[in-house]
C-alpha cells in the first residue's frame, strides 16, 4: 500500500543545507539579532561591555525580572493561551512566603508556601480559562487585578523587611553567589531552562502543548487531554512567577505588595522577541532565553552608551519590532 505518493511537488528546500536553515531559521534569526545588538553596544560603549561586571549584573537581574517566568510563559503561549497575571502571582506568592516565614521562622517553608500559592493561582487561571471558557487574555487581565487586590488586602498594603532571611542557608542557595562570583539566580535560570526544554521537547506535556496550539481541533480528535495540559501550563507559570517573586524580594530583602508590575511587558516582549508565535504552535526555549537577555540588556546598554533614560522606551520598541520582523520575514522566506 502506498497511498500518499505526491504527483505535484510543492515548493520546498532542495539541499540539505537549506533544509537545516529551514528547521533552525527562528533560532538562527534570534541569535543574529542578539549578536547585532551586543556588538553595537560593544562598539558604542566598549568600556562597559568589555568588562565582566555588566554581565554579572545581567546574570543576577535578568533571571528574576524576566527570564524565569518567560520560560514557562513560552509554553503557555505555545499552547495558544497567554498569562498576563504573573506579576500579581509573584506578589501573591510572596504573601504566602511572608506569612509562613513569620509563623514558623523558616525560609525554606516560606519558599514552599510561595510555590504552593503560585501553583494555586495558576490552577485558578487554568480552571477559569478551560472550564468557564474565557479567552486567556481576558481571564488573566481579570486575575491580574484579582491577585493584586488580594495581595494588598492580605498585607494591608504594607511592605515587609526581609533582612532576617539573609542568614538562612537557602538564602544563599537562591540569591547568593556560586563560588563567590556567579549569581545563583543565573544558575537557577540555567537549571530551569533545561527543565523547561525537556518538558517542551522531550515530554508529553510539551508535545501536547505544541499540538493544542497548532490545531486545537486536531488535538481533540486525536484524544489529547486539552484541558489538563492547558491547566498544567498555567500552574507551572504560577510557580515560576512565585519563585521569581521570592528571588526578587530576597535580593532586595524587602517585600512590597505592588512588586512585579514593571516586569509584565518586558517578560512578554522577551517571549515574542524569542520567536514564539502569539497564535500558538511555535516557539523555543532557546529563543526565549536569548530574548530575555536582549530585553534585559537594553536598559543598561542605553545608560552605558551615554543616552538619557528617555531613549529607553524608544529603543525597546525598535528592538522588539526589529526582532519580531526578522521572525516574520524568515517564516515567509522559508515556509
Amino acid at each position: 500500500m502506498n497511498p500518499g505518493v505526491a504527483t505535484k511537488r510543492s515548493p520546498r528546500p532542495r539541499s540539505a543545507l537549506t533544509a537545516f536553515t529551514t528547521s533552525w531559521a527562528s533560532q538562527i534569526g534570534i541569535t543574529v539579532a542578539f549578536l547585532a545588538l551586543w556588538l553595537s553596544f560593544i562598539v558604542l560603549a566598549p568600556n562597559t561591555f568589555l568588562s565582566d561586571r555588566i554581565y554579572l549584573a545581567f546574570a543576577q537581574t535578568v533571571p528574576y525580572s524576566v527570564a524565569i517566568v518567560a520560560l514557562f510563559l513560552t509554553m503557555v503561549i505555545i499552547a495558544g493561551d497567554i498569562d498576563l497575571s504573573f506579576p500579581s502571582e509573584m506578589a501573591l506568592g510572596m504573601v504566602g512566603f511572608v506569612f509562613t516565614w513569620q509563623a514558623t521562622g523558616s525560609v525554606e517553608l516560606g519558599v514552599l508556601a510561595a510555590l504552593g500559592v503560585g501553583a494555586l493561582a495558576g490552577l485558578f487561571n487554568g480552571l477559569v480559562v478551560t472550564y468557564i471558557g474565557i479567552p486567556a487574555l481576558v481571564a488573566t487581565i481579570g486575575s491580574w487585578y484579582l491577585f493584586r487586590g488580594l495581595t494588598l488586602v492580605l498585607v494591608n498594603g504594607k511592605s515587609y523587611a526581609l533582612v532576617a532571611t539573609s542568614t538562612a542557608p537557602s538564602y544563599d542557595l537562591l540569591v547568593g553567589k556560586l563560588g563567590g562570583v556567579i549569581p545563583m539566580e543565573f544558575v537557577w535560570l540555567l537549571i530551569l531552562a533545561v527543565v523547561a526544554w525537556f518538558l517542551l521537547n522531550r515530554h508529553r506535556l510539551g508535545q501536547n502543548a505544541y499540538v493544542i496550539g497548532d490545531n486545537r481541533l486536531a488535538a481533540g480528535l486525536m484524544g489529547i487531554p486539552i484541558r489538563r495540559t492547558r491547566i498544567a501550563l498555567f500552574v507551572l507559570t504560577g510557580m515560576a512567577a512565585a519563585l521569581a517573586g521570592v528571588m526578587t524580594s530576597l535580593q532586595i530583602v524587602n517585600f512590597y505588595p505592588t512588586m512585579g508590575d514593571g516586569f509584565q511587558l518586558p517578560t512578554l516582549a522577551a517571549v515574542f522577541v524569542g520567536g514564539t508565535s502569539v497564535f500558538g504552535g511555535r516557539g523555543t526555549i532557546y529563543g526565549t532565553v536569548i530574548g530575555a537577555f536582549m530585553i534585559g540588556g537594553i536598559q543598561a546598554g542605553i545608560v552605558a552608551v551615554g543616552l538619557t533614560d528617555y531613549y529607553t522606551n524608544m529603543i525597546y520598541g525598535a528592538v522588539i519590532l526589529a526582532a519580531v520582523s526578522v521572525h516574520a520575514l524568515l517564516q515567509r522566506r522559508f515556509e
Partner: protein
Amino acid sequence: MTFPPAGESGMSADERESARQPSQLANPIIAALEPAVMPRPEGERRLELRHISKAFGGVHVLKDVSMDLGSSEVIGLLGDNGAGKSTLIKIITGVHRPDAGEILFGGRRVEGLTVQKARGLGVETVYQERALADQLPLWRNIFMGRAVGGPLGFLKVGDMRRMTAKLMSESMGFTSAVLTPNTVVKGLSGGERQGLAIVRALHFQADIIILDEPTMGLSLRETEKLLQFVEGIRTAGKSAIFIDHNIFHVYSVADRIVVLDRGRVAGQFPTSRYSLDELLSIMREVATGGAFTEQERYRPAAGLPGAATGASEDHA
C-alpha cells in the same frame, strides 16, 4: 412493501429482482427508522450502534440511529451536509458522547467511550489534513495523542523518529531526500498529507478504520491509490467506514452503502444488489426530500409516491 433493502433475509429472488426496478423505489424517508444492520453471526460483528441519538443545543443531529459493521466489511456512509455523518463518526471515535443508545465493540457494550478508549479498541480515523498540525514535524504528527514514552511521560524521541523514517520510506512512498522525520507538515502536498494521515491511522494496528472524506483535494491518481488502499483494508480482514460526498468513489469500494438523511438512517444498500444508477436515483430522491421547507421536511409522506401510511406519524 415499504423499503426494499432493510435486511437481506426473507427476500426471494423475485423480490430482489423487483427491488432493482427504480420505479419500485419507495421514498427513502419512510424507511428512516430502519436500522442499518445486517444479519450476521455474532463473532463477525465488529461494531454495533444501537439507537444512538445526539443533540447539540436542542438541535437533534442524530435520531435513533442503529448500524453495524462486520469484519472484512467496508461501509460507505453517504448523506448531505448536515445529515449527521460527522457526528456519527465522532460518536464512534469517542469525541462526542451520545445522549442515548449504546455502542458495542465485538459484541461487548462500552460505556463512556473516549478517544483514548476507542483507540485502545482498535478504532483509528483518517481525518484528512484537518487533523494535522502544520507547524510540527512529521514525527510529532504521526505520534499525535499517542506519543511513545516512559512512565514519567518523557518521550522516546529517537524511537519515534526512527519509526517515522521507516514508515515514510515503506508506507508513504516519501523518497525525496529533503523529507525527513523532522520536516514540518506545512510544505507537504495534498497527497503527501493524506498519506501521512492514513499511515498514522494504520500504523497502530487498527481493526476499524474510519476515513472521513478522504478523497477531498486529491488528484485522480492519488484517489485511485486511496481506493486501492481501502480494498487492502478488507483483504487484510479489517473493517472500514468510508465517508464521502462522492457516490462514485464510495460505490467502487464499499460492500454496503448506508445513507443518512437528517439524522436518520434513510436506508442501506448492499452494492452487490444495487447498481450505481439505482443508487444515484435513490440519492436524488433523498436530496429531493430535503428540498422541502423545514416544516414539511418531517412529514414528507404526503404527496410523495410510494409512501406507506403509518410511517409518517413518526415524523410528525
